[in-house]
């Protein structure tokens, strides 16, 4: 550990020099009270109402934008030929990418026994679900006749028409709907024991009743716990290949097309890394204000922020490699079209977007995140997370727009300009996301209580009577 830290800081473990995952002095009761108290309080903070209303107000953008869209058709958007894919697909990929960090935290880090993830996994999963809700809006509304969107699914119908399974767009339907379903199931299963706690601690009859129903009668029986743990591990093991496949399939939407800038084999890993990169940025964007507002610094500690920043550094590196490889291949392929596409992407009329992308996704984060001092600087991380999310949006913009608007035939070249309706629906989904997230932090336990209890030192079962030294397993 290179950086000097104050040794008397109680949050630093003297053995390792690392920040603690949970502040010292907590016990089963105090963590339960702290987390359940946020949900069961009769004193809702005013700031919560303000945030909910702000989110709701911005979310009306989706309602107004979609109403007009359904009345007039997709012509109100900036999509045209040759730029036939615009904001809808950009925002779809951006949102679904954000969701991926939630699954990574809840599934992959669980399999790797990274117990520090326990305190952030619930709201990362919630973030996943709300991001998928926002993402799912776009393919549904951009199909032209959204009331027929169910035609995407294979179902017996009188027209005898069925999906065409050689198309990546049909794969997408399967990947995203599976992802949404499994994420919701995983999230709910994770909350069952906590609903039991809330049922037992609630004082209002209505809250008791609702949490009682949601808990399915959970009583903490050991046999139940063993099956529960088994199911959680299985769901984690299933979500891991799922999350990797979802963004891979989304990248196939592009990579299978024979268009310079899209037709490349590096897309699947590079999309997945980018998804996780932006997702961790979004977890930081959410976690930093929430831990401040609800005073959760004891459970979402600097260790979590530091670790998340490290994951961003790693995935950001993969993304940078992806950008580098795209540039290299456009030269090495010796393809005239590839070369022109890259030149146009960098120095064409929309070159500014490419340089914003390089600045926000590579230049700023990948130079500064090496510093531990900056990784534990909460303000800096918050600003950085916004920068990276901007950068990841521009990545999708660059991929979609600059590959499309000047294709093989110069006579068909055009440009792309988003309209106010594009912006309204995009900004509206951010409001929708905020709105749903505020509802979540108020009514559902945002930190998994049962998993936090497992991180406490009291958890260990001491064997051999008084010989307390023989501890079964060091969990934290």
């Amino acid at each position, binding site marked *: 550990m290179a950086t000097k830290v104050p040794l008397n800081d109680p949050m630093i473990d003297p053995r390792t020099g690392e920040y603690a995952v949970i502040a010292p002095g907590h016990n*089963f*009761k105090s963590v*339960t009270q702290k987390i359940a108290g946020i949900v069961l309080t009769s004193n809702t903070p005013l700031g919560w109402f303000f945030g909910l209303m702000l989110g709701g107000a911005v979310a009306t953008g989706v309602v107004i934008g979609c109403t007009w869209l359904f009345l007039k058709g997709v012509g109100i958007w900036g999509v045209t030929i040759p730029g036939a894919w615009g904001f809808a697909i950009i925002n779809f990929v951006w949102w679904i990418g954000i969701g991926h960090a939630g699954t990574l935290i809840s599934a992959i880090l669980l399999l790797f026994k990274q117990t520090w993830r326990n305190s952030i996994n619930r709201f990362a999963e919630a973030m996943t679900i709300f991001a998928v809700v926002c993402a799912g809006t776009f393919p549904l509304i951009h199909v032209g006749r959204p009331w027929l969107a169910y035609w995407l699914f*294979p179902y017996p119908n009188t027209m*005898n*028409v*069925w*999906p*065409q*399974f*050689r*198309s990546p767009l*049909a*794969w997408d339907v*399967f*990947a995203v709907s*599976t992802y949404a*379903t*499994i994420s919701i*199931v*995983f999230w*709910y*299963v994770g909350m069952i*024991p906590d609903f039991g*706690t809330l*049922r*037992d*601690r609630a004082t209002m009859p209505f809250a008791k009743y609702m949490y009682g*129903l949601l808990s*399915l*009668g*959970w*009583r*903490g*029986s*050991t*046999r*139940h*716990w*063993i*099956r*529960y*743990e*088994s*199911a959680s591990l*299985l*769901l984690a093991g*299933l*979500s891991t*290949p*799922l999350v990797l*496949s979802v963004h891979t*399939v989304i990248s196939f939407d592009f990579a299978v097309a024979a268009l310079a800038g899209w037709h490349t084999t590096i897309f699947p890993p590079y999309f997945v890394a980018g998804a996780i990169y932006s997702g961790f940025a979004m977890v930081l964007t959410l976690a930093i204000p929430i831990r401040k507002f609800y005073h959760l610094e004891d459970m979402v500690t600097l260790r979590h922020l530091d670790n998340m920043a490290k994951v961003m550094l790693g995935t950001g590196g993969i993304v940078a490699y992806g950008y580098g490889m795209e540039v290299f291949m456009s030269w090495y392929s010796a393809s005239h079209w590839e070369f022109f596409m890259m030149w146009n992407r960098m120095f064409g009329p929309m070159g500014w977007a490419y340089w914003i992308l390089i600045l926000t996704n590579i230049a700023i984060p990948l130079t500064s995140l090496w510093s531990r001092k900056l990784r534990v600087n909460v303000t800096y991380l918050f600003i950085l997370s916004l920068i990276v999310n901007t950068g990841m949006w521009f990545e999708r913009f660059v991929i979609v727009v600059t590959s499309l608007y000047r294709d093989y035939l110069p006579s068909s070249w055009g440009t792309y300009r988003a309209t106010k309706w594009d912006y309204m629906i995009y900004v509206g989904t951010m409001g929708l996301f905020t709105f749903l997230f505020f509802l979540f932090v108020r009514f559902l336990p945002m930190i998994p209580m049962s*998993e936090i*209890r*497992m991180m406490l030192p009291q*958890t*260990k*079962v*001491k064997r051999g009577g008084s010989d307390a030294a023989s501890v079964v397993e060091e969990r934290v």
Partner: protein
Amino acid sequence: MPPREGIYGLLAEFNTPTELVEATEAARHAGYRRMECYTPYPVEEAAEALHFHTTRVPLVCLLGGLMGVTTAYLMETWINVWAYPLNIAGRPLFSWPAFIIPAYEWTILFAGLSAAFGMIALNGMPQLYHPVFNAPNFRNGATTDKFFLCLEAVDPQFSLTETRKFLEQFPAVSVVEVDH
């Protein structure tokens, strides 16, 4: 079928998982079999003390996954080869590599749903009523910070006085009768 009247069992409350596990091991040793521990988080040692090792959740999950992959693959083949054959850029009707991807997704979908609902079903949930909720101290602690051992009345060795005496030799906070 357990009796629906009278006593369900005796419930001992402990402050630490260690005390719970020791009491459970001793009860098992003394010949009790129909018993259950209730803890606020998974205590694997308690499961060992109960000799509860295997769950059928992984099997249910595997069967679900196999069902998913079969369903999706057969459905795709039937649709694209027989029900609605389309010539897409001269590709064969049975484009098996392309069919792998939706089949892969449905493997995960069916396996995940089977794991989750299988767990819930094997646990007998939803079961909103259970006799242990009748114990006055149970809901105060079982999902927060206390550890419970319940020796059930259906056990042939169960006797209200003897079992109570047995449980009281441990550092239990309380031993209470649980009614049906």
